[in-house]
């Protein structure tokens, strides 16, 4: 049984349709990447999963229960790290961690101290004096020190430096080893590529793609750069080859994975001197979905990509 099962979820705020028929499946024991640009509906979905917002229509099950009706019972079995952590300004960080842990039903004190050490967080400072990154560490330590089945993480590392990001990734791997399930909403593609078994990409309140990274890569093109002894001709006539450009005596092109074999057969006839091929990165996947109207053609995708890149950082 899926840990999270969402079917055709709709949520409106006044005239705005924040979620418009969203689907999502998260299986037990997997780290699931939840991707989408700002305003795509990631946080709204997560708040519905936590029973904070009420759905308008559609089916939502978390650990087999209805998150709106069984919120309290469910919350004993999950831990949540919000994207923008706010804390009680006059409590110390250690107090806030213990409080969250206790309200959730108890936390592992040994692991709590270990995590404080690993994340290099001073628990005696008052929350008022913490930076955004430190407030995030408070929420992360409180969540990871809890012994629960599901971890819901909403852009948990946006304020962490690369060193802490590495510690965070270690901890997520530990949770996975111990059989926990993680829903990780993120903008940091490297993090998702490093951690996630499967990803779901949403846009404008709808799921646009879902699968393992390998599966999603089948949907995109491989970038090939080739240098040949004799001038290359006849590329345009090949099936599945796009965006052919000659730069400084080298040819750059993109090819659909299904037609890679035909392309290589064609190239060898011209005497290949150098060849590089790069698998599509998640970033390219991302741009394909967010580079508005990417399906209409390459030119528009390229034009929109700078905008999307700005949104990513």
């Amino acid at each position: 049984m899926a840990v999270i099962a969402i079917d055709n979820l709709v949520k409106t705020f006044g005239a705005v349709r924040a979620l418009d028929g969203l689907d999502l499946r998260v299986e037990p024991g997997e780290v699931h990447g939840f991707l989408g640009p700002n305003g795509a509906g990631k946080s709204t979905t997560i708040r519905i999963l936590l029973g904070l917002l009420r759905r308008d229509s559609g089916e939502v099950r978390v650990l087999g229960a209805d998150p709106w009706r069984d919120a309290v019972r469910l919350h004993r079995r999950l831990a949540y790290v919000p994207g923008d952590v706010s804390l009680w300004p006059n409590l110390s960080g250690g107090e806030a961690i213990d409080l969250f842990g206790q309200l959730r039903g108890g936390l592992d004190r040994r692991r709590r101290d270990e995590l404080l050490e690993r994340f290099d967080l001073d628990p005696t400072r008052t929350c008022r004096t913490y930076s955004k990154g430190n407030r995030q560490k408070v929420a992360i330590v409180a969540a990871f020190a809890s012994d629960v089945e599901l971890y819901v993480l909403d852009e948990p590392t946006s304020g962490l430096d690369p060193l802490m990001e590495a510690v965070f990734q270690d901890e997520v791997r530990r949770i996975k080893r111990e059989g926990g399930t993680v829903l990780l909403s993120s903008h940091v593609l490297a993090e998702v590529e490093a951690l996630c078994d499967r990803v779901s990409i949403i846009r404008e309140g709808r799921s646009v793609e879902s699968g393992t990274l390998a599966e999603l890569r089948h949907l995109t093109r491989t970038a090939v750069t080739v240098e040949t002894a004799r001038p290359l001709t006849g590329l345009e006539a090949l099936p599945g080859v796009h965006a052919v450009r000659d730069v400084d005596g080298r040819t750059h092109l993109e090819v659909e994975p299904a037609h890679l074999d035909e392309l290589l057969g064609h190239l060898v006839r011209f005497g290949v001197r150098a060849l590089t091929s790069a698998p599509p990165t998640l970033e390219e996947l991302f741009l394909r979905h967010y580079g508005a109207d990417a399906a209409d053609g390459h030119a528009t995708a390229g034009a929109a990509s700078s905008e999307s890149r700005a949104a990513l950082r």
Partner: protein
Amino acid sequence: MSAFAGTGRLTRLVLRRDRVRLGIWLIGTPLLGYALAASVSGVYPDDAARHGYATTSASSLVARAFNGPIAGADLGAVVVAETYVTLAVTVALLSTFAVVRHTRQNEETGRAELLGASVVGRYALLTAALLVVVGVNVLSAALLALALAGTGLPVAGCVAAAAAIGGVGLAFTGVAAVTAQITVTSRGANALAAASVGLAFLLRAAGDVFGDVNADGTRVDSAWPSWLSPLGWGNQVRAFGGEQWWTLALPVALLVVAVAVAYALAERRDLGAGLVAPRRGPARAPASLLSPAGLAWRLQRGALLGWAVGVGVVGFCMGVAADEFNTMIAENPAAAEAIAAMGGGANLVDAYLAAMLALFALTIGAYVVQALLRVRADESDGILEAVLATAVSRGRWLGTQVAAAVLGALALLLLAGATTGLGYGIVSGDVLGETVVLGGAAALRLPALLVVAGVVTALFGLLPRWSVVLSWTALLAFLLLGQLGAVLDLPQAALDVSPFTHVPSVPAVDPTVLPLAVLVAVAAVLVAAGVAAFRHRDVPS
């Protein structure tokens, strides 16, 4: 002068950010002064009444502590005695908050960093804040002088009185400029500056209590502690009582010295840093914190303690004053009539005590609103989301907050009644009896506060976005109905809207059960409606 670069622009920024607040301050203070002065002339219309007021004020220790040293029996001197402390403390607090808001708060939020990276000198932020606050104080004092003169008082006295109040504002502008350099948080800087206002009040009160009364008993000359207090300096100007203009130089001198100190401190510290390192907390939470109730207590206890000190001190003084009240009303039938209308009943001292308890209940209503509106603040800044994502149900969380606010209110009511009883008991000779009776009488006001809590809870559940504004509006409406309703001859139906109307005016009249039971029932319905609505709405909303 590159350290001051950008001061002009920043000054305009301060004016733009605070145009509404500063406007209200600029116009509100003179209006308040005018209204108070006009009402005082109505209550003490002739020489006999004013002479009576002056001798009572001079002989009463309570009046000296709260109203300062009376300067004579002229109408102007009576007006100053009745208005000076209120206006001076208001202006002192407005000045400190404004200075901190535009200096330390900018550093705390990171705005100063952004500004400091542009063409803005090291002193520009502080200078801009000081220019605006000093300017508003001077302008507001000028308007106040005009407003007072508008009531027909002698012009020299009006100028002196207004300048005295403006001087207090300048003095605390300087104090706040220094405290903003000391602490890292704006909250800390405000607390330090407000504490210095409190200290100034106590020094002044002590100096005035130990002062000497002159031969005809209508004038007090303060003892030396008043001269240590910026609030006391304003009294020493002796407006309407042979003005001593030179004392106006004292607050100006303090301002100059304090600003010099503030610049020196700003020169030596890093942006965002203070002179005092922020306090640290425990690395582990004590067991007492680890529940919604424990958290509510931890978050409320500071405010509750502050309220308790205020309520206790005022209650004790009101109790002591009850005895002097007998002599005062013998000389002033108009005041006696007003008290009787508020308190009810035949015995005037009981009516006075009942009126005081009614005032306490209304004031503690502000505590209930303030404490309970925390729920909305928690929701807006996202803390509530994180708490409700744990295994705490919405009903339990909101119920805990309501219970905490109500228990706090009950404690404050009991304290108000008991300290009033203690003060009155000491002068009347029955300490234990009065403490118990008035403590109980105060506690009987709790049902009205339950209704206040119910109103806030219902608003939070049903109209969260409007709950802050509407809650305070409701309390203000209750206050106005209670204080002005009888005076304005409003219909009973209008007065009945306020829960405070229905509380039996104990000890002036005997307690009755029915109205209290109805209030409790209304409160229960409101709380239940609020909790039910909260359980069915989105969070955050």
